[in-house]
């Protein structure tokens, strides 16, 4: 399923990217990437262009005053980070159903694989967690580029089912977080009322958390009208309703509020919040949008 969007032309481009870490992270100093946190500083090595997410403290104000160019100082210290990629595989991710388009699970899987490949290329330790219905399965991917293939195979074996329980997955992640430095959650943020509480707690412990909010176009702008039975993909609960223009407008308003609520929550807790719509070009999303969102650079 990840192969659908992750093609061989994209892989070389991904290798030119690196994951951006915002918080002070713990890790073993044998990775290829340099860390920019103050505790890890050993020796000045070079300047590079400022990128969103860089610590202001490492901006070289002297250079800025002379050249009007914002650069940050880089220090040599090789570190290896632990990255947890957590994928929501609840039934709601298998949407849109039978429409011929990319499902949310497929889009999220491809996105996850892309980020994993960027991390593996830098020899970071990658772990995959999939959760649905209160059950969370962990899979250690490794730290070599070749490990992308077992990861993709694993992702292709996943099918969406069960309910959403983000809290359990995050709790499980929190328990393993002693050795982990970056947590990226791929979910549609539906069906778990306690998700924010758990995520807030995890963020308060200093975890660098990113949430890729995957939605489909039909969720953002539903086209269906008329009298129909709406059945919840996860719970099976149903309501009979007449979807009028007015009801559709109300729904869109509610959905927007839902997304804005999550965005506000993420901003408050220093969590990267990256909405992804499944009909947006995948390569654009990875190469440009994730970069603008500060998750890669």
């Amino acid at each position, binding site marked *: 399923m990840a192969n659908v969007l992750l093609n061989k032309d994209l892989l070389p481009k991904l290798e030119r990217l690196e994951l951006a870490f915002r918080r002070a992270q713990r890790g073993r100093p044998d990775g290829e990437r340099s860390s920019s946190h103050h505790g890890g500083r050993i020796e000045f090595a070079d300047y590079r262009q400022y990128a969103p997410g860089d610590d202001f403290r490492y901006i070289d104000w002297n250079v800025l005053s002379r050249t009007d160019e914002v650069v940050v100082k880089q220090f040599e210290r090789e570190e290896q980070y632990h990255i947890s990629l957590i994928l929501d595989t609840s039934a709601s991710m298998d949407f849109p159903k039978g429409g011929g388009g990319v499902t949310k699970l497929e889009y999220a899987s491809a996105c996850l694989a892309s980020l994993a490949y960027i991390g593996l290329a830098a020899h970071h330790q990658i772990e995959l967690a999939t959760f649905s219905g209160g059950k969370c399965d962990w899979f250690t991917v490794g730290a070599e580029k070749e490990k992308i293939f077992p990861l993709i195979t694993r992702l292709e074996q996943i099918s969406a089912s069960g309910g959403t329980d983000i809290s359990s997955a995050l709790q499980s992640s929190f328990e393993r977080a002693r050795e982990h430095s970056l947590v990226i959650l791929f979910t549609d943020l539906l069906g778990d009322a306690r998700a924010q509480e758990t995520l807030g707690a995890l963020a308060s412990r200093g975890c660098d958390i990113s949430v890729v909010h995957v939605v489909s176009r039909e969720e953002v702008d539903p086209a269906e009208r008329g009298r129909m039975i709406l*059945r*919840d993909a996860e719970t099976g609960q149903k309501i009979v309703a*007449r979807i*009028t223009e007015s009801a559709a407008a*109300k729904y869109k308003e509610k959905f927007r509020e839902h997304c804005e609520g999550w965005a506000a929550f993420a901003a408050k807790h220093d969590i990267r919040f990256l909405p992804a719509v499944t009909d947006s070009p995948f390569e654009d999303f990875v190469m440009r949008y994730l970069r603008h969102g500060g998750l890669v650079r």
Partner: protein
Amino acid sequence: MTFMNPSALFGLLLVPVFAWLYLRRAGRREIFVPGLALWQEAVELSGAESGRRTGAMTLPLFLAMSALSALIFAASRPVVTGETKAPENILVIADCSMSMATFDSKGNFYYRATKQTASKLLDELKPTKITLIKLPLEEESIRQDVDSFLSTLLTTPHLVDVMSELTRVSGLAAKASAIVVLTDDPSKVPSEIAGKPVTVISYGEKSRNIAIEAFEVTKSENGFAAFALVKNHSGKDAVIPVKVLVDDIEVEAGRIEIKAGGSAVFTSKPIKGEIIEVHIEADDDGLLYDNKVFAAISASQKISVAYIGQGNPFIFRALELLPQVEVKRYKLAGDVSGGHALYIYDGVVPDALPAGEVMLINPPRSLGAVRTAGVVSNPDGIRAAIAKETPLLTDISDVRFKRLLQLELGEDADILAASEDSRGVVLARTKDGDTNVTVVGCGLDLSETNWPMHPSFPIFWSELVSEIAGGQTSGVPVWYNTGDLIPVAPDAEVTDYTFGENVDTVVRGGRAYFIPKWPGIYTAGDVKYAVNVIHPSESANDGVTQVPSEIKTVENTAAHRPLWRYFAAAGLLLAFAFWGVVRVKGE
């Protein structure tokens, strides 16, 4: 109530099927959503909860079913039968070809017989309106007084292709409730025109006609020889008396034997005279109009043209090409004697204009109504254009003039062609007392213009002489066919017809014509015109009698109240209401 298209009622079986499909679609449509919570809130807020489904579906379902039923009902075309009324409009089409002037062995004209039958049947039917058409499609009239109008219809000697002509009346036929065709050949008439039944009233019998089908008069050493091809269309062998008349005097009589369906040529002895006629006289002949042929040896005197000037080879050559013209040349204006039909003054002018037709070419000074006012010149050539439509001039756009006269002409003058800036005159016509004056504003030689080398130059002379001569050639036997446009002298207002009916002269584009209606000798002015036999296919026609007992009519829709219109309107309204409700409710 009756249904004009009852089979459409089977469509009502679709209504329950449609209802079932509608209910199935409306009641069972289920979609999965990733999260129901947002939808639940939205539905509650918008008040779009469906409530009891069956109740909510009632209105659109009712509207849809009603619209469908009404439209199906309309398609079955229900009408309420009312009082029977007379047909609204009967289209009567009369074949007026010459064969209809044939009479049967009892002396009844085909045409009269069909008209009488039509009158009788129309009287019985008493239609509210009658439209009468004469074929060939020359006129069309709507009248109530059928008898008087039918009596005014005459046959025409022109060839009439009835089948082709009928295709031209399909527009009128579509509006008619019945079509009646009067003809002598029902095989050419379709059973329906524009979906309307055609009643054919035909009258005729096996042809008894003997006709002269071709005629030729040629010049010989001792005068003229006439050849007539006589055809026997009847089923019997015949011995036909033939007479040759010259200027109304019988000069030769003979008999020719012709087998049934065969033909024979009659050749006259050498004859001299102005009008040559050949008559045949068959005892039992159905059509008389094709029994006489004529040739006119017209214009025994030549058109005398006086040319006064130093000589112009182009003018002489152009006039030589016209066989009826006799040119007499003079060098000095004072030498000219009278009696010419046309005086051409080339570069000279007389002291006074003679009566009749005068042409002034490049006049060196003013004379009478023609006053010279100056000269327009351009060594590169002046373009000219036709200023007024005239048969004298064709296209002169390629003609150039190095020098043109500026002329002051009277109010009655016509400038026929002038320079593009209208200052110089190429050709003008005016009157001075009894004299018709044609003025050419330049010398007609190549040092002044290239006109003599242009095709329009000989045409100009030919037309000029033709106008003066009234379209006649000289010493040559001429004849025309009926319907031909025959040119005559402009002053011939009326053409006399040998057998009493005069034909008016028509003036078009400065030329006078007449159109002969019947074979015979026409006289316009002093010139005689021979008009010959009718079209052979009209002579050869076998008539068929077919007298229907009644006129077939379509059902008079005016006698019914068309309920289907109301059902159609109601169906459309209900469909519109259904669309509106569905749109408002977002279904």
